[in-house]
Each structure stands twice: as structure tokens, then as C-alpha cells.
């Protein structure tokens, strides 16, 4: 019996059921931890139980009962002692349906809108994915103590404000599911391109986000937006091995070795997206996934259907106006119609001032100026981007480009060169 893989598989399910039974988030987490430790001692000696999940749940439940009872005795709370006695002897519903509900309740509680979004992300990774506080802190580049504090604080709020461990009512389900999907996507995007630090792609975060996406698709079957989200993550992730060199240098979409793209993920993501679209997915994840699919489909960079990508960005903009999407649209139009059209859009966007401080605005400008052979202006724009960028791999990439255009500027050369999408 491999306990580590058992931990991976069972942690969430055991915790979810223990919280349902005892109603105490914090104690349950400790108790489940202890139950796994006990299993590690007992199973190799006495043999593994027939139903590990049931064994772990009942061990964890008994630990929580002990804790609450001890506390209740000290405070002389008769009702609480009675409640624990009943809980200890109660039959545990271990049916598949109950297990699915427990896990959903756990996810919806972790992603409750009354919790700060960063706390939702941390709590989901801790309780649903079973990551340690250390791992989460490393993933988000905050000190371990800060992350531990964040998790303690959010659990305290769950307890003291009495957040229900419950499914949202039907009329709120869609809105609450949006919140859950946002948390999953935030985990993914932080893994896909870290906002700061030395390491650009954090594989563990991408993997956890995809795992969460799969779990949600299993728990809430046939939800088109959920499937679109999973497809989007798979399609982005399929380029992982090609997006950075062994020494963490960024490789742009145009320069990537497309042989390194993960064909399995593409083969899963594309039909998943097609099914989602057929079933009516029309949210932003579906649109972004459709764009990613057009990239995945292009065997060579020049095969990319940029006109179609620009149209998808149009639709995305109508759904959810955002200056970042406008910038992406400008880049797509530049690829479809030529750099000059893109530059005009970027200038207009810059004039609005909403993206002041965002390094990808001057970086995109620089890229188009470079394609136009306007070396001096391109160099200037790369310098602006460099002043704003926060992570090392992107800084190195921009420096590389800057050196390139400076060289071309002094040589007076004119050479087309590839683009800015990573």
C-alpha cells in the first residue's frame, strides 16, 4: 500500500466527509492528518482495511469527537457532550452520492464569496488539494508565516461568522460556480506565468488547477462552462514543455518547437471544448479556449488563423470589456492585417491610460515596431517594458530583444523577427 498516493486520492474525500459529520473545519483537518499518521503506523503492521476511506473517516471522526468532548467537559456544556455521544455511534453514510455532495460542499465553502479571493485560493489548495502551507507559500512567493496566517485567519472567519458547510441554493448556484471557476483559473494562471520571481512556470499549480477542473467536471457533469474551463487549461498547458528552455528562458509562441506540444492534452482539450460549445458554453473561458484551440491546430506559426482569433477577441470584448483583452486583440489584428493596424490600436489604448504600469503594453508595442523595422523606437519601448516587468524570465526575454534591436539599429539592418505571445 502506497500511502502517499492514498493521501493524494483520499485526503479530500476523507476531509469533506469528516467536516460534514462534525461541522468543524479546523478540528477535522487536524484529525484527518492524524488519521493518516495512524494508518501509516497500523496498516503495515495489521494489514490495510478493506475500505480505506471508511477507516480513515471513522478514525478522523472519533478524533474530532474526543476533542470537542474534552472541550465541552471543561466548559460543562451538557448538550455538546450529548451531541458527541450521538455522533460517535451514528452510522456514516458512505454512499457515492454522499461522497460527491461532501466534496462539492467543501469546494463551495472554500470558495465562499464572503472570503477574500486570495484566502479562497489558499484554502482551496490547502483543503481541497491537500497541499501543505509550505507548498502554497512557495507557489505564490509569500513567506510561509504570511501564508499560515492567511489560512488561520480564513478558518477563524469560517468558524466565527458561521459560514455554512453547504451547497448554495439553486438560484445562486450559477453565481457561486463562477466564483469557484475563478479560483481554479487563478491557480492555473499563477502557475502558467508567475507574476514575479525567478521561475516562470510553476508546474505544480498548473497540475493542481487541472486536477480541480477535472474533479469539478466529474462532480457537476455536463456543465458546458466547466468543461470549457478544463479545455482552456489543457490547451494552454499543452504548450508547457515548449514555452521555456531548460534554463528558464522564455520561448515565444512563434519560436516554439511545436513538436514539444503535448498532443495528448490537445487531443483531450479540443473535443472537450467542441462538446462544451455544442452544449451552449459561451462564457469567457470558452472564448479563450477557442482561441487556444486555433493556436493548437496550427502546425506552423504561419498557419495560424489570426483573423478568426481577432474575431474571437471581439466577442470576448463585448462580453467582458477589459483593456488586457483589447491589447490581445490589437496583437491579433497586427498579425492578421499587419503591424501598422495593431500599432494604431495600441496607441489608442495607451492614450486611455488604463494600462499604465502594465509591462505587456510597451512590450507589445515594441514587438510591432520591431516587425516594422523601426529599431530605435522599438528599443525605447523595450526599455519602458523593462522598467515595469516583475519576473526574471520575462526580464531576460525583454533584454534579449532589446540587445537584438539595438544591434540591428547600429547595423542599419532590416529583418523580420518573431513575436510576443509566449
Amino acid at each position, binding site marked *: 500500500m502506497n500511502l502517499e498516493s492514498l493521501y493524494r486520492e483520499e485526503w479530500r474525500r476523507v476531509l469533506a466527509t469528516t467536516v460534514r459529520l462534525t461541522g468543524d473545519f479546523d478540528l477535522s483537518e487536524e484529525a484527518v492528518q492524524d488519521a493518516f499518521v495512524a494508518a501509516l503506523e497500523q496498516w503495515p503492521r495489521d494489514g490495510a482495511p478493506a475500505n480505506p476511506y471508511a477507516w480513515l473517516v471513522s478514525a478522523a471522526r472519533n478524533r474530532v469527537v474526543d476533542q470537542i468532548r474534552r472541550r465541552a467537559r471543561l*466548559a460543562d*456544556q451538557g448538550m455538546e457532550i450529548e451531541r458527541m455521544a450521538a455522533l460517535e455511534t451514528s452510522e456514516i453514510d458512505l454512499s457515492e452520492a454522499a461522497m460527491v455532495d461532501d466534496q462539492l460542499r467543501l469546494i463551495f465553502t472554500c470558495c465562499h464569496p*464572503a472570503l477574500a479571493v486570495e484566502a479562497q485560493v489558499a484554502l482551496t489548495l490547502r483543503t481541497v488539494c491537500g497541499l501543505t502551507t509550505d507548498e502554497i507559500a512557495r507557489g505564490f512567493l509569500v513567506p510561509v508565516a504570511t501564508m499560515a496566517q492567511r489560512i488561520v485567519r480564513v478558518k477563524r472567519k469560517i468558524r*466565527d*461568522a*458561521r*459560514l*455554512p458547510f*453547504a451547497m*448554495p441554493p439553486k438560484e445562486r448556484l450559477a453565481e457561486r460556480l463562477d466564483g469557484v471557476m475563478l479560483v481554479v483559473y487563478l491557480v492555473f494562471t499563477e502557475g502558467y506565468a508567475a507574476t514575479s520571481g525567478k521561475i516562470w512556470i510553476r508546474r505544480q499549480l498548473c497540475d493542481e488547477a487541472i486536477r480541480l477542473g477535472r474533479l469539478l467536471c466529474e462532480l457537476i457533469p455536463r456543465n458546458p462552462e466547466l468543461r470549457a474551463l478544463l479545455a482552456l487549461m489543457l490547451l494552454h498547458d499543452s504548450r508547457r514543455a515548449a514555452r521555456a528552455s531548460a534554463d528558464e528562458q522564455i520561448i515565444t509562441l512563434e519560436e516554439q518547437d511545436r513538436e514539444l506540444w503535448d498532443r495528448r492534452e490537445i487531443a483531450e482539450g479540443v473535443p472537450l471544448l467542441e462538446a462544451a460549445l455544442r452544449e451552449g458554453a459561451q462564457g469567457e473561458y470558452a472564448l479563450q479556449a477557442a482561441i487556444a484551440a486555433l493556436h493548437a491546430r496550427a502546425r506552423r506559426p504561419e498557419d495560424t488563423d489570426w483573423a478568426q482569433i481577432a474575431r474571437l477577441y471581439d466577442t470576448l470584448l463585448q462580453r467582458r470589456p477589459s483593456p488586457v483583452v483589447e491589447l490581445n486583440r490589437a496583437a491579433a489584428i497586427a498579425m492578421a492585417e499587419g503591424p501598422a493596424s495593431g500599432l494604431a490600436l495600441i496607441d489608442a489604448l495607451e492614450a486611455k491610460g488604463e494600462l499604465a504600469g502594465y509591462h505587456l503594453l510597451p512590450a507589445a508595442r515594441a514587438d510591432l515596431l520591431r516587425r516594422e523595422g523601426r529599431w530605435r523606437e522599438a528599443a525605447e519601448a523595450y526599455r519602458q517594458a523593462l522598467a515595469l516587468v516583475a519576473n526574471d524570465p520575462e526580464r531576460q526575454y525583454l533584454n534579449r530583444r532589446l540587445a537584438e534591436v539595438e544591434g540591428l539599429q547600429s547595423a542599419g539592418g532590416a529583418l523580420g523577427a518573431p513575436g510576443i505571445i509566449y
Partner: protein
Amino acid sequence: MQYLLLIYDNEANFANMSQADFATMLQDYGRFTQSIQQSGHHRAGQQLQPVATASTVRVRDGKRQVTDGPFAETREQLGGFYLIEAKDLDEALAIAEQVPSARIGSIEVRPLVPPRS
């Protein structure tokens, strides 16, 4: 479990409201109060006089300091409150969203520390 719903809105909103809108608002409040009384959630509730009437007291080194005005000057002011009984935060939030001022201001939902037995 008891929750305090703190009603924050901009007093200027009320000052600038037409008489008809103000009357509607009052009616809405009346209806809301009645509805949570009937459902058994209502424990207490009251409107506050404007912040211009507020005084703030502190005792420092055994000496009392009284100042004019609220504890903090903010864009929205505490204008009233409800004390409600709800089974959990979701129920409290569902009630808070029906407070008429939620449409123009904000309702802060604060759980009360349960009395020690």
C-alpha cells in the same frame, strides 16, 4: 446565531432625494422590518441620527477626551442597524441583501460573539 447588520450609506443621498423617492424608501424599510419580524429573524433595529450629531469619547491616561464627530470620517456613514437571528452566514447575507439601503449603500454583516454560558 446573532448578526448585526450595519447600514452604511451616504447621508447626502438622502438629503438629495426627491420627496417621492424618500417616501418610497421609508415604505420599503417599513415592509422589510415587518417581513423579518414576521419571519422571526428580527431582534432589534433602529435608525441613527446623522453623523453631525455624533460625539466620540476616549479615555487616555485616565483623562476623558470628548471630540465632535464620528470615530472615522468616511464617504458612507453608519445610518442604522438591525440585530437579527439567523442560522448561518448565508441566511444573514440573504437578509442583508433585502435591506433597502443595500441598493444605494452597503450593509456590513457582523456576527456577534455568543454569550458565555
